[in-house]
């Protein structure tokens, strides 16, 4: 990085920081992180993303940036390990590279490498890494198929390491996060056989015993996770809503007043605010948007694309842009094409919304 370029970029960093201090929104955190990435300051970019994610958990753009920054920060070591593996493949190198890939959330590549590791060396540890990668994929996408494959890999790992607690720990995390308490209790019982008298495990066993009676079987719990897209330890929507001094209604009104905009909608749970349509039409619109969001989230997960961040529909009705987010979804319907200002407005709506602003329903 040349000194001139660094000096020129310094102004942009200051500007982005000032904007963030004035309005701490997810978009402004992302803008500041972008500036750090341009300066190749990956550690700083990652720090900004993590700070942003602490305020706006689950924000897709910040998560994407954080992943990318992590990946770039570890890039040099990754390249070096890949070179060494080409020269002399051995378990220690595979293990380190897989750990880096899992840390960077490159689960597909980690799984691929673990498979290669298993084929070349026959090391049972590779099966564990494959299972862990698949499990991470399940936690990210909530696809039942991923969980099923992870369980198969864990079965294989348990046969290879019958007295190892690691496969059991991974199985326990899957069962607990899916809400299959009976399965979780069974796994804790097996862990207690390996580590008798462990007070943490004993306490957990007692807690699970109270939950297990009404818990669904593992398969049913996984089916439910795929349907709803939520794990039992996910934060509830209201807790995820970041505090913000601005309210939704003025923003929604401003969006609806833009040229070509036919309507703007914000939804959270069963509550919706609609601008541009009234009465039964508003209700119908809100219901349709909710259905589109639900179907799109499921489709994105089942297609292996991860969490949906934007849905665009174009036809003879014009264009409908929807920004689904964990805290709520916003949509804008235009007669013409969707512009960047519409996108920005929607991002601001779903990124910085106060929970108490949704008292009025349409």
């Amino acid at each position, binding site marked *: 990085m040349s000194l001139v370029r660094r000096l020129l970029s310094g102004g942009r960093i200051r500007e982005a920081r000032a904007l963030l201090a004035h309005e701490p929104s997810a978009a402004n955190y992302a803008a500041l992180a972008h500036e750090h990435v341009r300066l190749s300051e990956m550690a700083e970019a990652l720090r900004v993303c993590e700070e942003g994610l602490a305020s706006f958990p689950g924000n*897709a753009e910040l*998560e*994407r940036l954080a992943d990318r920054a992590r990946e770039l920060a570890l890039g040099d070591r990754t390249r070096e390990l890949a070179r060494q593996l080409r020269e002399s493949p051995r378990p220690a190198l595979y293990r380190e590279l897989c750990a880096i890939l899992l840390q960077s959330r490159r689960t*597909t590549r980690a*799984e*691929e490498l673990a498979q290669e590791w298993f084929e070349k060396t026959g090391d049972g540890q590779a099966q564990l890494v494959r299972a862990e990668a698949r499990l991470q994929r399940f936690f*990210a996408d909530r696809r039942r*198929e991923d969980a099923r494959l992870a369980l198969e890999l864990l079965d294989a790992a348990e046969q290879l390491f019958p007295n190892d607690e690691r496969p059991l720990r991974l199985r326990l995390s899957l069962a607990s996060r899916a809400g299959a308490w009976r399965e979780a209790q069974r796994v804790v019982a097996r862990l207690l056989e390996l580590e008798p008298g462990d007070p943490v495990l004993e306490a957990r066993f007692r807690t699970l015993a109270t939950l297990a009676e009404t818990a669904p079987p593992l398969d049913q719990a996984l089916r439910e996770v795929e349907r709803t897209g939520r794990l039992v330890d996910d934060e509830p929507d209201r807790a995820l809503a970041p505090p913000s001094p601005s309210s939704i209604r003025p923003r929604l009104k401003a969006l609806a007043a833009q040229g070509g905009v036919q309507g703007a909608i914000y939804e959270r749970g069963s509550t919706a605010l609609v601008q541009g349509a009234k009465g039964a039409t508003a209700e*119908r*619109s809100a*219901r*349709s948007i909710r*259905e*589109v969001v639900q*179907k*799109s989230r499921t*489709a*994105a997960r*089942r*297609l*292996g*694309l*991860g*969490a*949906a*961040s*934007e*849905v*665009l*529909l*174009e*036809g*003879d*009705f014009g264009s*409908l842009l929807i920004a689904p987010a964990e805290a709520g979804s916003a949509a804008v319907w235009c007669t013409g094409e969707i512009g960047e200002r519409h996108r920005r407005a929607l991002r601001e709506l779903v990124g910085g919304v106060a929970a108490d602003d949704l008292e009025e329903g349409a």
Partner: protein
Amino acid sequence: MIEVLEPLGCIAGVRIAVLVSPDGVPVVVRGQRSEEARGEAQAALQGENAESLAALASGWLTALSRAVAPLSWNPPQRVVLRAARGTLVMLHAPGAVLLVVLDRGASPEDLRLPMEGAVARMQRILRAARGAAAARSERPGAPLPSAADGKGLPLVPADSSPKHSPREFPG
């Protein structure tokens, strides 16, 4: 139809391009300049085989059409689903759906023109095929196959005048 899809596969960021024909058979082209495109085995490992992709995406498109129907909207012509690990773009063509999966970070707007071009080319091919079929059907087939081409051409050409009257038949 492969030649219609091939240009799409050459665009940077295109992971896979699939044309789902009316008979439900997907025509597939895998991206050549995609960062995340893997071999067949890897794709199958991820459950990304073309058949399941086509089925899931078509199902989603149908669900969207059903969702917007209460608003008296016709089914959408183009839909984009942007997600954490990639983007799905679908374009409705007459009697078929063209779908493309893009890498994370690739812009679906860059695909707008190439996809519309592919649909236009597909329509041209279908029109030409229909024209050829119509030209063939204009010539009535004979009840028995002819020696000339063995495909049921008339024994007596339609434009030839009778060389004899019915009264001149032997016997």
